[in-house]
């Protein structure tokens, strides 16, 4: 048993990932503390989204992906055989780049995760949906139209609905893959404000292309380049005084 036991929410050790023969992630070791916001930054194709998707095994869905090394949540290796991936994914919510509400009502979108868990009680569903929508700062806007289609909402509202949908099953980790990149500045500001609020209840990992966003919302920042984790440190340090030249060059806009 190593000395870090119990200290970190998410960890990887010597993680390598291959798309058939092409190596996309190279020997990544990272420790993420609970109730923090961690930003993954780096140029397109650097592997940050791929890495994010290791934490809920979404890469399993892509044919030809192989992984070695360890990915641990609460010190349990999630790639070991005994882990039920569906049970596991319920503990890790995910918000995607483009808002992807189901073509169902607002209520049914948020209730989806509970329903697939077999929750039938109307009261429980109603309470959970309300709580999740409140937590996602969407309740006031939609409380009178819960039965309307989610597709009628604006992009920003849809994305907050997706966040509500993810947190309704009470995960402890929230993965966000460029959650604001398809949104206008006002909606983006709302999402960022929300991330700040949600930090108290969840461990959040956010992939972003927007460095100001990383600087605004995150406690720690990881810089990825060509499938490697170049630097991982406090956000302030990364943006003011990075240790690596590559990080310096990227954040000052010299490439990427």
């Amino acid at each position, binding site marked *: 048993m190593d000395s870090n036991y119990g200290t970190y929410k998410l960890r990887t050790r010597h993680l390598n990932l291959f798309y058939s023969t092409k190596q996309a992630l190279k020997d990544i070791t990272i420790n993420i503390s609970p109730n923090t916001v961690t930003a993954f930054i780096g140029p397109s194709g650097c592997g940050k989204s791929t890495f994010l998707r290791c934490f809920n095994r979404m890469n399993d869905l892509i044919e030809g992906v192989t992984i070695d090394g360890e990915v641990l949540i609460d010190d349990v290796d999630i790639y070991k055989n005994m882990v039920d991936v569906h049970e*596991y994914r319920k503990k890790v919510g995910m918000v995607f780049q483009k808002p992807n509400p189901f*073509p169902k009502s607002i209520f049914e979108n948020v209730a989806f995760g509970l329903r697939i868990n077999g929750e039938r009680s109307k009261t429980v569903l109603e309470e959970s949906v309300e709580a999740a929508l409140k937590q996602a700062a969407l309740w006031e806007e939609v409380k009178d139209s819960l039965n309307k289609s989610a597709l009628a909402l604006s992009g920003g509202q849809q994305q907050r609905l997706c966040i509500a949908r993810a947190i309704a099953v009470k995960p402890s980790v929230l993965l966000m893959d460029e959650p604001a990149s398809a949104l206008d500045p006002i909606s983006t500001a709302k999402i960022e404000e929300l991330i700040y609020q949600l930090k108290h209840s969840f461990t959040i990992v956010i992939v972003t292309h927007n460095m100001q966003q990383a600087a605004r919302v995150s406690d720690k920042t990881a810089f990825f380049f060509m499938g490697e984790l170049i630097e991982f440190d406090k956000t302030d340090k990364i943006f003011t005084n990075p240790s690596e030249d590559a990080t310096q060059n990227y954040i000052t806009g010299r490439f990427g």
Partner: protein
Amino acid sequence: MNKKRFFNPDIQDKVFKVFAICCTSLGLLTLVVLLIDITIKGIRRINWSFFFSLPSRHADESGIYTALAGMVSLLVITLLIALPIGILSGIYLQEYGKKNRFARLIEINISNLAGVPSVIYGILGLQLFVRTAGLGNSILSGALTLALLIMPIIIVSTREAVKAVPDSLREAAFGLGATKWQTIQRVVLPASFGGILTGIILSTSRAIGETAPLIVVGALAYVPFIPEGPMDQYTSLPIQVFNWTSRPQQGFVVNAAAGIIVLLLFTFILNGTAIYLRNKWYKKIAA
């Protein structure tokens, strides 16, 4: 320097537009002429006794009661067989099946099957169901043959509808911990329902209109009774019409026209209902 064109683009555009309008009108006009011709010939024959009379040697006493009953039973059994198998195959091929060379081979073959002349299905049905399986010229033989005929259409359209569901929705469901079946059942199928329904409509219309394979598997031309079970002999409306058109007496030509009107109405109502359902469903989904 640009080469001077013989026609300027504006004129080309107009010429093409007029050409397209002519083509469309030609198709529509033919249809309208046919419909008017049929209506003029057959409409006076359409009354209650036409619907509820058994076939007869005398044209004006003859009706489509048995043909209608046969057609409806045939259709119900055909759909009962073809829908579950077709829809589930479509889902399997798109969602579960591996995407390798073998899968592509199957895909091409199913698409080809959809284009095979129906009489060939009739011959297959004759050998397989009527003779080998010993079902005789029963409704069941006919329905199994028609089911084979429309299954490729259902499979292909189910696949297309399922394929059209964006992967982002599947990811969302998986991300929430849904299993593959939960994702298909609760997200993919509801989202592709409209497309699947369209396939069902198309295949049903086709099954209604088919005559050739039924003649081969032994639908009777003259059936003076209503089928009571799947092993009974039967006739179907298109066959009744076909039979009437081959009779020399003028009265039967009128009967055939009236039968065609009924057949067209049937198709029209069926398609209309399905399109109505689909639009209603689209509206529900799109707010």
